[in-house]
């Protein structure tokens, strides 16, 4: 029987010749990636339990939770993780500690852990990000303990929707805009299915953009997102992949719950929020609204291509007086690459603050100088717009892509970046 990528990935991991939507299976996992907000360590220590395979567990320091009332406040959590890793025989290099750190579902792709044809589980809500690498990637949420104990995960095989892409994204438009378009178009009917991308348009999307799209599964309402394996992905994995892998491809006649088609050239700047991510509007609807703060970073942005896009807008320009712009690279490697490419200097020259890599100001409990006060409005590339998410319950978070945030920071109000991008720039020395 013809199968989707989803069915093939889960069948392989379950050791079965095939599976069908609705089947309940136990799928063997290749990776468990943890944020610095673990929920299983105390129980493992108290009960003397061992993780199923210490070589397939990684920890990524990204949120750096600050509030003292947090059980996982970084000052307690980081030492706990280091000690747990030592006790369990988890290699030291599997702990992405300060200086090597980054977001827990970005690091596995960047560092070659999440590979095509596998099932990769993350503790973070946004772990679908890894699906950009042709794996079945899922947040374990608060079911981490059993997975870490047994190395497998119960799954009800989901249905899939195929998203066929043609064309290429217009300049300045990126993965954020794709996610918001899909929230708007598909949000009320995805209902926990998997989105599988297909079609010639996929080849035009760099891995950065695929990661940003795959990151949006939860917000779109999908269980996860799977990209096909192509030359762009194979090139990216060359020199990164930690072990041999066997990609999966959907059968041409695989049964999908639905097939939707998009010409990427028709995508445009979209903004989401405030308070509800389903509130997706064309950028023009909000242009001119004054802002107090601007944030570039988080797991749905903060990659090198996002930073390069923001830098293109900001180069030689200044953040408006009275506005604070904070830039947070997604990982230590991204921070190094951004500095090597001259992007960090551009941000600093523009009057932005550049922080340590990780999740940044996306959530007010994280280590970030960016907290919203009463009545403040922030435009952000981050992942969530819920009331109070970045500080005060009376503040507003509007979400958009890195070019939109950068242009807005310059003007002190929500702005269209088109004019800022319409210049020829010499390469940064």
């Amino acid at each position, binding site marked *: 029987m013809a199968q989707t990528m989803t069915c093939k990935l889960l069948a392989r991991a379950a050791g079965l010749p095939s599976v069908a939507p*609705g*089947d*309940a*299976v*136990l799928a063997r996992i290749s990776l468990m990636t943890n944020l610095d907000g673990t929920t299983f360590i105390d*129980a493992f220590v*108290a*009960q003397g*339990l061992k993780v199923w395979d210490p070589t397939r567990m990684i920890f990524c320091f990204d949120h750096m939770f600050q509030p003292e*009332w*947090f*059980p996982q406040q970084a000052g307690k959590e980081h030492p706990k993780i280091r000690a747990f890793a030592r006790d369990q025989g988890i290699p030291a290099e599997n702990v992405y500690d300060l200086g090597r750190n980054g977001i827990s579902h970005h690091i596995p792709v960047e560092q070659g852990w999440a590979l095509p044809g596998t099932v990769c589980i993350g503790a973070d*809500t946004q772990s679908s990000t890894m699906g950009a690498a042709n794996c079945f990637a*899922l*947040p374990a*949420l*608060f*079911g981490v*303990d*059993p*997975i870490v*104990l*047994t190395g497998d995960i*119960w799954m*009800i095989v*989901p249905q899939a929707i195929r998203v066929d892409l043609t064309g290429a994204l217009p300049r300045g438009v990126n993965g954020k805009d794709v996610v918001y378009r899909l929230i708007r178009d598909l949000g*009320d009917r995805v*209902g*926990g*299915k998997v989105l599988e991308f297909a079609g010639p348009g996929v080849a035009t999307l760099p891995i950065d953009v695929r990661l940003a799209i795959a990151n949006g599964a*939860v*917000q779109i*309402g999908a*269980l996860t997102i799977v990209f096909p394996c192509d030359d762009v992905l194979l090139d990216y994995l060359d020199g990164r992949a930690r072990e041999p892998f066997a990609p999966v491809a959907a059968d041409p006649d695989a049964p999908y719950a639905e097939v939707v088609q998009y010409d990427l050239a028709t995508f445009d700047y979209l903004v989401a929020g405030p308070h509800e*991510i389903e509130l997706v509007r064309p950028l023009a609807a909000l242009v001119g609204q004054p802002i107090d703060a601007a944030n570039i970073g988080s797991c749905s942005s903060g990659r090198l291509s996002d930073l390069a896009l923001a830098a293109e807008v900001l180069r030689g320009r200044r953040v408006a007086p009275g506005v604070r712009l904070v830039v947070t690279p997604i990982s230590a490697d991204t921070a190094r690459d951004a500095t090597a490419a001259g992007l960090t200097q551009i941000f600093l020259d523009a009057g932005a603050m550049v922080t340590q890599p990780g999740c940044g100001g996306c959530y007010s*409990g994280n280590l970030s100088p960016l907290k919203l006060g009463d009545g403040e409005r922030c435009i952000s590339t981050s992942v*969530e717009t*819920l*009331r*109070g998410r970045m500080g005060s*319950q009376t503040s507003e978070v509007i979400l958009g892509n890195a070019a939109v945030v950068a242009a807005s920071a310059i003007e002190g109000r929500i702005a269209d970046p088109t004019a800022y991008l319409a210049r020829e720039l010499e390469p940064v020395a």
Partner: protein
Amino acid sequence: MILAGRVWALGANVGATDLLPARYDKQGMSRQWDECAKHILEDARPGVAERIRPGDIVVAGDNFGTGHAHYYSAAVMGCRTAGIAAFLVDGIGGLFQRACIDFGMPAWPLPGIAALVADGDELRIDLATGDARNLTTGATARFAPVAPLILDILDAGGSGPWALRRVGAAAA
């Protein structure tokens, strides 16, 4: 697994932050489930929390369990601690369903369940067979049974105790 209880009927598109408003994030993140339980459905159905009896069943329409997964555990554990025995719905988000079953809370899509019962009806259902009966009206329906693997997890009280059972480890 047989469930019987009074129904709280909700509509379609009920999200995690409808079950427990996001303003109780702090109580959720610090795992004060008793506090979460006091505020469930506070905006969607004000005053419900104090009227829930152990064994009550939430029945809802399609697209149950929407919203950011950050808020799932507090929503599930708040409801469970308040006494809700199951979420039986026309359709459920796969990720929210995961959170429920991992916590030992039966949560299953039974397309048509919302039409079988009204708010306040008494419902009886055998998850292993799919046989359901509205004890208030006498109406019956047969749904697809819940997979044995899932019933095992629920029987163990969630995926944590289920995994311990599988590896033969004794809980402390």
